[in-house]
């Protein structure tokens, strides 16, 4: 068998090999890749950075694929030379391998503008998995991130960093964002959407110097201004990797030049992907590269015939909630070209169609891309649209999605990345009995690229396959089918400030007892007072600040910090119990006193008579800090647990958490107040404190994990606060700390709290302080009720004898 060597284990190279395998097995194939990962979907690195996908989710072909197709894989080996006379390639591991046919698929490298300081620590590119990993490690809440480049890649990077909590600025050389895909008006609409996402945009900014002493500290621009930065991503364009082509003596211009059969100037060397130049054009999106791969596969396997005629570049921005699509040619200032436009500034929708000789030449869609596939089709087919002029911008929207799908012709492309048409999908469904999206992906590759056609593929399956099963993802609930992580992000980036708004825009408008309290918490967490508090979305306990009992009465537990009380308080409690005929007074498991069986109407009066704050015993919030007597009285005590416990409770009380948070402080490892089975515990020892988290003694019993050991009491309190705020921000609603620490792992938690860089720690504490400042004792509503009948029983205006 002939030997085929492939240089580059990326998207185009491996896709081409897949095509070659579809022809008869002809080659003994070996692939060299200088990255250390199996073939993965580079496009989805944006989704990995934005936390929408895990790294493991983006593998296209795993090791088993290489094995079952008998493909030799040499990862981590960089090819440094080609000897086209001897027909060998040389690797940086010293290996020399001979070939019969050679395929160059080396892709491209990020272009680094020639500014001094680009080598500083803290400067990144965004091209491969390792760089994405490094970015994820670095991008933390509060960090200042700058992205150079306002194109597709730069904006997706900015969005990812912003999702990770960074404070992001995009710096762009040109006068508008995505100038290669958008006209000035489209650029303006996009800029507004990006800014609404809380990403700053600086246009017409030329960077002249990257500042800092070894470490990145900031940037200086041509106009003399500077900006601070802890992290810089350069996304200023790409350069094709053509060095090897030159070494092999091939015809190289901007890329390795190929003809319509994808042949280079050497009969045994072929090239595909971003490193290739065809007809003067170098492509930087996958759809064209896949088309090239199909042609190349035919040529190289001796089926020379199909030709590559160039592609129309169609680009879609992959940012959730920001819809931008652009294809073809859109400059309407040249002669013989006219454009049709539609604008709705309030909705942020801008559409522009560019026509030439009655045919579609280009499209820009911002804010609404639902019709993008139709336009792409018109672009490709070159259909004469003169007759339909009136309906071009609104091609008859039909409310029934199924109908929409039915209207699409079989030749229309559904998955632009992989060139899969509706006809391909329908015949695959019938021929192969496909029932799930996963099977469809496996069989046709549809929706395995950028993923923007996933919902179309699903609608299509729903329409064609009677027993179609939706993929189950972990969503909050059926009312708003998104993961909690997605929702948190949407609330923040879309500036959603009320539960009903989220339900109306992203959900079924109704909501239920599961999602409403969860969304309430998210909105409160994200906007912290600067939002519309909707009591109707809360459980009854949180409407009346007491715990509903099985008979519809309530229980009242006042706060008793550290479990310490006074004779005066005890007297008031006793008086209240008498005055309101409280059926039961009980000492609880959390070192405080419970008045059980109270009527709703009596709640505000009882709170007033008690003169004590709410113990939050009814809510997902800070419950209590139990303490032991510690050095105050105990003969074993080594730390002042009572004072420390009371201080901890004062600092955190009245705050809400994803689930209840129980704490304890003990003066020595005898652990009398059970710190090691609390959500947060402090354990005193000679000369230091252990801060432990994630303990539980409820339905589950779990010993808490050590977060850190510190000498000073102040540092112990600070560590507790850091973890507390981190849990508030990162945990899913109704996720107790014991599940939270297991999900994230203590390693990560330590790195992002007590071992985080000082600015990150400060940012956590600042957000905590802000929430604390806005919090209040819930029982103060006894004087200022949220609504006139919060506690009052309605009396009919007239009485009738029934």
């Amino acid at each position, binding site marked *: 068998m002939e030997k085929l060597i492939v240089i580059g284990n990326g998207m185009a190279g491996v896709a081409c090999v897949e095509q070659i395998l579809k022809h008869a097995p002809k080659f003994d194939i070996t692939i060299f890749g200088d990255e250390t990962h199996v073939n993965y979907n580079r496009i989805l690195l944006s989704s990995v950075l934005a936390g929408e996908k895990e790294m493991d989710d983006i593998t296209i072909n795993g090791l088993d694929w290489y094995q079952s197709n008998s493909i030799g894989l040499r990862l981590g080996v960089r090819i440094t030379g080609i000897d086209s006379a001897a027909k060998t390639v040389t690797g940086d591991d010293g290996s020399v391998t001979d070939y019969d046919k050679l395929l160059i698929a080396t892709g491209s490298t990020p272009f680094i503008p020639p500014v001094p300081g680009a080598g500083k620590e803290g400067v990144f590119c965004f091209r491969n998995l390792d760089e994405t990993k490094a970015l994820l490690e670095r991008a933390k809440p509060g960090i200042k991130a700058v992205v150079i480049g306002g194109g597709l890649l730069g904006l997706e990077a900015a969005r990812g960093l912003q999702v990770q909590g960074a404070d992001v600025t995009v710096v762009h050389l040109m006068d508008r964002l995505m100038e290669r895909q958008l006209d000035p008006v489209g650029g303006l609409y996009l800029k507004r959407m990006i800014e609404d996402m809380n990403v700053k945009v600086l246009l017409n900014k030329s960077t002249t110097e990257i500042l800092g002493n070894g470490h990145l500290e900031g940037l200086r621009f041509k106009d003399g201004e500077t900006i601070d930065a802890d992290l810089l991503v350069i996304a200023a364009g790409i350069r094709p990797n053509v060095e090897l082509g030159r070494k092999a003596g091939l015809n190289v211009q901007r890329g390795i030049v190929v003809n319509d059969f994808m042949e280079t100037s050497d009969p045994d060397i072929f090239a595909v992907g971003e490193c290739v130049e065809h007809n003067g054009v170098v492509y930087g999106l996958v759809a064209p590269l896949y088309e090239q791969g199909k042609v190349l596969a035919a040529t190289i396997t001796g089926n020379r015939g199909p030709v590559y005629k160039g592609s129309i570049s169609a680009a879609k921005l992959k940012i959730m909630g920001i819809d931008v699509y652009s294809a073809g040619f859109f400059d309407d200032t040249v002669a013989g070209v006219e454009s049709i436009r539609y604008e709705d500034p309030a909705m942020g929708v801008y559409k522009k169609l560019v026509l030439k000789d009655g045919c579609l030449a280009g499209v820009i869609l911002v804010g609404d891309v639902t019709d993008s596939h139709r336009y792409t089709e018109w672009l490709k087919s070159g259909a004469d649209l003169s007759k339909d002029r009136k309906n071009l911008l609104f091609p008859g929207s039909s409310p029934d999605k199924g109908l929409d799908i039915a209207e699409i012709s079989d030749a229309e492309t559904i998955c632009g990345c992989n060139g899969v048409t509706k006809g391909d999908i329908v015949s695959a469904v019938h021929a192969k009995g496909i029932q799930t999206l996963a099977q469809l992906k496996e069989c046709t590759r549809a929706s395995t690229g950028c993923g923007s056609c996933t919902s179309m593929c699903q609608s299509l399956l729903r329409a064609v396959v009677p027993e179609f099963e939706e993929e189950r993802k972990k969503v909050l609930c059926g*009312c708003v089918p998104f993961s909690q992580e997605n929702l948190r992000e949407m609330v923040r980036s879309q500036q959603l400030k009320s539960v*009903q708004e989220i339900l109306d825009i992203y959900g*079924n*408008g*109704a*909501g*239920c*007892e599961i999602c*409403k*309290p969860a969304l309430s918490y998210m909105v409160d967490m994200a906007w912290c007072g600067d939002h519309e508090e*909707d*009591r*109707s*979305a*809360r*459980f*009854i306990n949180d*409407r009346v600040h007491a715990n*509903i009992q*099985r*008979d*519809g009465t309530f229980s009242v537990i006042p706060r008793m910090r550290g479990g310490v009380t006074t004779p005066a308080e005890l007297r008031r409690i006793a008086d209240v119990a008498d005055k309101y005929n409280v059926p039961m007074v009980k000492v609880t498991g959390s070192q405080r006193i419970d008045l059980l069986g109270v009527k709703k109407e009596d709640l505000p009066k009882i709170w007033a008579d008690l003169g004590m704050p709410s113990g939050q015993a009814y809510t997902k919030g800070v419950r209590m800090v139990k303490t032991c007597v510690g050095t105050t009285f105990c003969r074993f005590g080594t730390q002042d647990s009572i004072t420390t416990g009371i201080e901890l409770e004062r600092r955190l009380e009245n705050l809400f958490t994803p689930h209840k948070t129980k704490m304890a402080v003990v003066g020595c490892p005898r652990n009398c107040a059970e710190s090691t089975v609390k959500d947060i515990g402090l354990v005193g020892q000679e000369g230091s404190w252990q801060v432990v988290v994630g303990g539980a003694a409820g339905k589950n019993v779990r010993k808490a994990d050590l977060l850190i050991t510190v000498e000073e009491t102040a540092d112990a309190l600070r560590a507790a606060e850091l973890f507390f705020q981190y849990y508030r921000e990162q945990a899913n609603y109704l996720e107790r700390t014991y599940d939270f620490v297991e999900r994230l792992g203590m390693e990560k938690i330590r790195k992002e709290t007590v071992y985080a860089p000082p600015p990150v720690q400060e940012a956590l504490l600042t957000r905590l302080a802000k929430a604390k400042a806005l919090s209040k004792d819930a029982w103060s509503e006894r004087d200022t009720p949220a*609504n*006139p*009948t919060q506690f009052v*029983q*309605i*009396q*009919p*205006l*007239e009485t*009738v*004898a*029934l």
Partner: protein
Amino acid sequence: MTWIRITEIANIPLREGRKVAVGPHEIAIFNMGDRFLAIQNQCPHGQGPLADGIVSGNSVVCPLHGWKTCLESGQVQRPKDLRECVRSYPVRVEDGIVLLQIEDRADAGGKPAERMCTA
């Protein structure tokens, strides 16, 4: 049959319920935004106060154990396929006042978990 004047609409916040006792009837009235609905206040499962439940579309979820009841028909919707139901009452708003119509039926008066579902 007469309409009974109950309370000003402002006394029932949007998407919340409030309990009112009219003679032997304990009724939960809900403000649905565009209209008001009323059903018997006791959940057929454990007599939970439905007025204190979370509204979910046209239903309410009992705060005690999560049974879901339709506010229009009074039919229990979760658990599924139960023939349980609560009574529902016609509601009308006039001059900013919520009015209820309570059919005076000797056999139904005051018994919790009345079974007179028509759905």
